[in-house]
């Protein structure tokens, strides 16, 4: 009996930790890591959903096709256009909102919580609302513009720039409050005496913002830049639902706003060409990594220069 309980105790101390972390690693290996690697294999094959008999090695054919695929380059162009229009204003306005929130406020918790309304609203739901807001004939957006004297109603789905602006508006609406809270939390960890010292030197609060606050929260700014790069380059729901017929996944009658994530869905599950879709996923992954690194370096340089 003693032997058994001793062995149980040894198991509890030596092996139990592994038992506790095993579920995470097993599930992650199967549903996270394996697909990522297996994706590379699929990309090198012809893998058709409608005709499994065609399955076979394709070598680099899928990647070669990518280089001359006009749809891919168009989607890449759109993705970057929307990305720039959404990320830059988003992070700048988030900084402004965080600056406003970083005061002694009455109802502070209430203000913070209310900033998360867009964040918790389901993306499908909010996109469908914006679809109506950006209607050509009776949309609220055109009405607001007409109040400001722009009487020519904009057909938001008719061209690249209009549709990009519409999508970027949705992205900005959703993420400004969330990013503002990230910035706010970083702002509040800045030691108070730094402000006191700079006030002695006669710095105004505007100067303090650019000389103290922004440089001090730079790590979080970089974090949000990376997050919005990863998210922005994978934009899917907004371009899908802006379409008059969302199921087509075409992103406008001439692909005006078709993004890469949307094209991957179309190639894989509408054209049933999974091999090619997998190759596109890899291309997107590489693009994300490159852009994230470049953005980090640029942000670091810009933020550091302000010091």
């Amino acid at each position: 009996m003693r032997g058994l309980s001793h062995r149980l105790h040894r198991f509890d101390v030596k092996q139990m930790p592994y038992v506790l972390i095993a579920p995470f690693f097993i599930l992650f290996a199967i549903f996270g890591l394996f697909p990522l690697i297996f994706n590379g294999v699929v990309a090198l094959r012809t893998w058709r959903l409608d005709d499994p008999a065609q399955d076979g090695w394709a070598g680099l054919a899928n990647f070669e096709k990518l280089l001359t695929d006009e749809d891919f380059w168009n989607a890449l162009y759109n993705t970057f256009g929307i990305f720039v229009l959404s990320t830059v204003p988003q992070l700048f306005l988030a900084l402004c909102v965080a600056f406003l929130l970083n005061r002694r406020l009455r109802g502070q918790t209430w203000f913070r919580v209310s900033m998360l309304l867009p964040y918790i609203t389901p993306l499908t739901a909010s996109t469908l609302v914006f679809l109506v807001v950006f209607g050509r004939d009776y949309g609220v957006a055109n009405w607001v513009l007409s109040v400001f004297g722009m009487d020519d109603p904009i057909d938001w789905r008719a061209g690249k720039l209009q549709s990009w602006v519409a999508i970027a508006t949705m992205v900005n609406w959703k993420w400004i409050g969330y990013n503002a809270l990230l910035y706010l939390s970083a702002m509040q960890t800045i030691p108070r005496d730094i402000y006191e010292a700079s006030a002695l030197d006669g710095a105004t609060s505007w100067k303090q913002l650019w000389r103290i606050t922004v440089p001090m929260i730079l790590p979080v700014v970089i974090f949000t830049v990376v997050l919005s790069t990863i998210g922005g380059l994978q934009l899917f729901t907004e371009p899908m639902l802006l379409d008059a017929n969302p199921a087509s996944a075409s992103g406008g009658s001439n692909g005006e706003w078709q993004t890469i994530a949307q094209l991957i869905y179309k190639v894989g599950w509408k054209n049933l060409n999974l091999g090619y879709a997998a190759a596109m996923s890899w291309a997107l992954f590489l693009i994300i990594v490159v852009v994230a690194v470049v953005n980090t370096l640029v942000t670091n340089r810009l933020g550091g220069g302000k010091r």
Partner: protein
Amino acid sequence: MTTTTDTHVAAPPGADPGQAPRHKVRPSMSGRAPQDTPAGKWTYILLGLTFLLSIYPIYWMFVIATSTDAALAEIPPKFLPGGEFARNLAEVFSLQDVYFAESLVNSVIVSTVITVSVLFFCSVAGFAFAKLRFRGSRILMVMVILTLTVPNQLGIVALYILMGYLPGEGGWNGSLLAVIVPGLVSAFGVFYMRQFILGAVPDELIESGRVDGATTMRIYWSIVLPAVRPALAVLGLLTFVGSWNDFQWPLITLGGTDYPTSMVALFDLASGNYVLYRRVLAGAFVATVPLIILLFVGGRQIVRGIMEGAVKS
């Protein structure tokens, strides 16, 4: 690794004035840190404006959801809600191939199972990483953090193929399992729980439990779990919101079946030849309400989770 300053995060509204530091030596405005400077009139006006812009699309969703078709063609846009919500909603529920009622049930099932599972698996793993000694713990933790940075959406094609090979008729695609099982654990959850347990559970407490002969699981139940309740609330809320709103993967694996989640059902509602936006937005509003209630009840925790996450990353 920094322990967050709880006083600044999620302080109750009534506590604000008392939070101002006593050492107000200089009368000049700029001598104080911004967070100690009382907000001026313009700050309130601009924040109020931000609030209105945040809530307007949600309110507009409700206005259309409660109106007739004619409301969509009003200029200037209709501002007050109408009385047609019940009728619009009844139409949504009666649409044949949208399965809206089923989709709400499915979403509740998916989000609840995922949330409970994430809370359990991530808190035990976080406990192991924070407080137990075992070989390889450091490198394994680094692996968890690395997995945080890989967007798993990129393996989505291969995930779909994998699901097709799993046991069951025709694999897992088209069943709720395909949506639930990959979500049962989260790297962020493990990381978050570990950080919290490191600070919230003193080593001596665990040692004394060991001396009393408690097993590891016993210590988890009676010492760790009670101490990490706030973190569980935060993680649970964030996980529930995330899985409720998930769209791309559910669309791929559940699209076109009789078992959509509510996000996929909304997509179906907005597709097709005969789309009526008062219906679409009535459905969208119903799918949004549970989360607004969550934000109302647990908003403070959600804010705290997001802000702590920022400081720790």
